């Protein structure tokens, strides 16, 4: 029998210093479904496990802001399939 467990696909966008550090502007991230609700903190932890620049930039003590579908959220926000999740440093406009 084929494994038909649903997957959650997210669109991840990196901006400013994070875009440069990771060398990419965006990616599709597929997560195994069926588990407990996935939060922003879960996604950030998953990316951090890649090591290298991800571990450095998303590590403890580094201020990272997150927006889901163009709205700023906190780390406990739940993400859903198809969401656009953007990671970026604190803003410095004006």
């Amino acid at each position, binding site marked *: 029998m084929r494994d038909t467990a649903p997957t959650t696909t997210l669109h991840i*966008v990196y901006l400013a210093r994070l875009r440069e550090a990771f060398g990419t502007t965006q990616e599709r991230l597929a997560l195994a479904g069926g588990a407990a609700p996935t939060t922003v903190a879960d996604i950030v932890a998953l990316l951090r496990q890649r090591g290298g620049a991800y571990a450095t930039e998303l590590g403890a003590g580094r201020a990272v802001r997150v927006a889901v579908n*163009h*709205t700023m959220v906190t780390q406990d926000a739940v993400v859903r399939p198809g969401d656009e999740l*953007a990671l970026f*440093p*604190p*803003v*410095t*406009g*004006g």
Partner: protein
Amino acid sequence: MAVRVQTADFDVGREIALLRGGDKRVGAVASFIGTVRDVNDDATVSTLTLEHYPGMTEKALEAIVAEAKSRFDIYDALVIHRVGTLVPTDQIVLVVVTGAHRETAFDACRFLMDYLKTRAPFWKKEETPQGVRWVEARASDDEAAARW
């Protein structure tokens, strides 16, 4: 009410005239213009490059302007923010507020800038003799926004 994110420069006189639009109720026009400095954190800045998050930035600016209109008794507000590479003396941002009286116009203008600095997705990268660096967010900006 309008917000614009653009690479092109803006003409302050023209923008103010358009916002006033011959509205005879207006007794006060407050404006703020942010410009590129040639020194930041003790380094000489030769260029300043501004990045934004298309879609979210416009939405965030619209939310900030809507918040200003709900909090202050003003008639209209305009925010223009430039992106791309700028040099010292260039204009970066324009905020204009119209109202009946100066207190609310001044307050709304200051509120808009304080909120924009901490809530609108823009990032600055500056070029100095020591190299290119991303500008770090300042705690003083968070404190300024927290006053409101």
